[in-house]
């Protein structure tokens, strides 16, 4: 048994960490937080040059052709650094949708552009409140044009193209849903920026008015493709959350070692030690669940739906837990704009919702465990 990343993959992780420590300092993240730009363009370019954007994209389509385990280790580092770039939208959602369902010409058009950093992509799924569900998709597709409103769309304001979930029928079945690719730089699209919890990753409202769109995947397969995309993204996001959890835990630990109160290091008080120990427990459970998700993702195993839901839940809980208690360990200073704690708190809570809420995934996990038991 080798339930661990290989030496080469660990080396890639070190390489990514070194790169991000240099190019994605807390100061750089803060510049985006303060609204100086919608995302870190220089970092995005650097990620493309390092080959990180296309690490799981086959060489035939301009990528490095490494694989999803490699993408997992990079995702962990992206989360650790709180990188203010549209990585998850472009790489986990748009690129994965293209890899699963794209025609050869669609892949040729968009995947090399993603790998080279020229195209930002996203998934336009949500329409206001609610979780992923066919019944929540009202935007219509008819005669090759889309009409409706999507919000929130992650990185929607800076994306070049979107994979859009649309309704093509009203039978009440999953087959009513189809996916389309829309060039957001073309006509029929109106984009409005939305203020959101985590300004280092934008959210937008996109209105489609008789907007020309190209089908992605077979008609009637939209919901099934979407489910696969969300599962794959759940594992990849889990690695970002694991990276973020570890960083938040380290920040809390370091502060507990440095800060003196009542004449001693605050990390010598059991109330603080036990809080940090519990953060370590959450982070460890999340990492182990995510490793299993990585295995299932990289081998496309039948266990992926269950593994993805478990990784998603565990990593969401861990990141929220570590980020909030990191602030608690810091006391008043943790609640200032000046300290970096709130950047992880914002990211943790935004990520907890991005692919559907925690309660949605809890429900999914039990459904999937029941299916497995019945099989």
């Amino acid at each position, binding site marked *: *048994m*080798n*339930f*661990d*990343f*290989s030496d080469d993959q660990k080396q890639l992780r070190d390489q990514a960490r070194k790169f991000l420590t240099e190019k994605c300092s807390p100061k750089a993240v803060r510049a985006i937080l303060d609204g100086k730009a919608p995302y870190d363009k220089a970092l995005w370019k650097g990620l493309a040059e390092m080959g990180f954007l296309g690490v799981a994209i086959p060489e035939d389509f301009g990528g490095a052709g490494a694989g999803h*385990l490699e993408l997992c280790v990079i995702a962990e580092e992206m989360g650790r650094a709180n990188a203010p770039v549209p990585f998850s939208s472009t790489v986990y959602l748009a690129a994965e949708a293209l890899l699963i369902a794209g025609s050869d010409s669609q892949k040729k058009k968009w995947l090399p552009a993603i790998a080279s950093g020229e195209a930002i992509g996203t998934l336009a799924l949500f329409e206001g409140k609610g979780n992923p569900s066919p019944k929540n998709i009202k935007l219509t597709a008819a005669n090759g044009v889309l009409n409706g409103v999507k919000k929130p769309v992650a990185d929607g304001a800076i994306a070049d193209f979107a994979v859009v979930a649309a309704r093509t029928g009203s039978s009440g079945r999953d087959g009513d849903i189809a996916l389309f690719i829309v060039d957001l730089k073309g006509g029929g699209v109106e984009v409005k920026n939305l203020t959101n919890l985590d300004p280092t990753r934008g959210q937008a409202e996109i209105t489609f008015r008789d907007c020309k769109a190209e089908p992605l995947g077979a008609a009637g397969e939209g919901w099934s493709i979407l489910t696969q995309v969300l599962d794959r993204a759940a594992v990849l996001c889990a690695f970002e959350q694991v990276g973020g959890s570890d960083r938040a*835990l380290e920040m809390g*630990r370091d502060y*507990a*070692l440095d800060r003196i109160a009542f004449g*001693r*290091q605050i*990390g*010598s008080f*059991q109330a*603080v*030690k*036990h809080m*940090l*120990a*519990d953060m*370590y*427990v959450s982070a*460890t*459970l*999340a*990492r*182990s*669940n995510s*490793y*299993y998700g*990585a*295995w299932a993702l*990289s081998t496309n195993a039948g266990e992926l739906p269950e593994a993805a*839901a*478990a990784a998603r*839940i*565990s990593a969401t*809980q861990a990141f929220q837990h570590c980020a909030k208690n990191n602030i608690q360990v810091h006391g008043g200073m943790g609640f200032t704009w000046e300290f970096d704690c709130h950047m992880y708190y914002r990211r943790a809570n935004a990520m907890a919702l991005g692919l559907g809420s925690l*309660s949605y*995934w*809890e*429900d999914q*996990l*039990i459904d999937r*465990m*029941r299916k497995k*038991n019945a099989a």
Partner: protein
Amino acid sequence: MNFEDTPQEAAFRATARAWIAANAPQQYEDELRKSSLGRTQLKNANILEVAKAWQKKKADAGWACLHWPKDYGGRGSSPIERVIWQQEEGPFGKLSGMFIIGHGMCGPTMMAFAREEHKRSYLPPLASGVKVWCQLFSEPAGGSDVAGLRTRAERDGEDWVINGQKIWTSGAHYSDYGILLTRTDPNVAKHKGLTMFFLDMKTPGVEVRPIKQASGASDFNEVYFTNVRIPDHQRLGEVNDGWNVSLTTLMNERMSIGAGVSTGFPELFDYCSSLMLDDGPAIEDRAVRAKLANWAVKASGLRYTSMRAISALSKGERPGPENSIGKLVAGSMIQDVATYALDLQGAAGVVSGPEDAEVAGRFQAMLLRAPGTRVEGGTDEIMRNIIAERVLGLPGDIRVDKDVPFNKIPTKGRS
């Protein structure tokens, strides 16, 4: 990343599997599979006898204490082979409960500190389960603070004379031997005046009194020592170096990986899968599903954490510290799981008798046994301290008794 055995591991697994299939007490398999915390007896047989017979059979064929040297009754196996054995032994591994302390703690301590002739005479019958060992560390005045123990050992010629009391001694009532931590010098700081021995539990002056637990069962004992004589050649380690000897014992316990900790989750998931609530099947209830999902990811997280440690062993590396979370997570979880299972039963949850209770009262038994899991072998609080200090590198507690002679440490909180 893969879950496959190496060719050598696969060969070892096949040999183990074939031997178990041919030799295990299959008639108890189903019952053992269904046993859970607080409900570990067999209906028509004495589990201690079944356990001893199975252990002896394993030892005769070379499958006992796999990682011990052959000369001492083991097989000389690698750590990963030991894990593979545990995986293959499956429910029959539950029969090893009465040997865990002897094999996991007493044996390794003997191996590190006993004289060669003692190792050769005492270890093989310990491995084969013919003799059962217990560990006499905790005292009324020293539980989490084990170095606060007060049982005295005083030198008298070639012997030591022991007086005092131990408590929470698992299995003392059926043990043949024990390792015993005593105070030999009360005039120095508490960690510096301790000495370790081993002794025959039939020695005159040793009295074992079972403790009736909050659950009603009796797994633990008080052990009284009145002028008990132990020859000096049964001393383990140097005089007054008992603290370091005990650290070896405890370290060995924490090295044991793969046995798996019980969370109660599989039992609860099974139960909820067939349970009907007032409004329909429990498994379709949103609130039930949310609870189940939260426990599911803890159980799977522990399972995969253990697999990460096993992978390190397979590569010949030392496992990281991540396995230290197991007991902490599982202990409080099984208590919560049992509480929730009863909540789902409504008023009927109060009935605990196996004949009348839901699912034969397994969750009631679990609930009543669960508080012990959060205390025994290191309380939740001690486990958190260990994680905070050894894994995260946070400072140890400020110890007010550190440089104080033991006999000057206060013994009462309020007078």
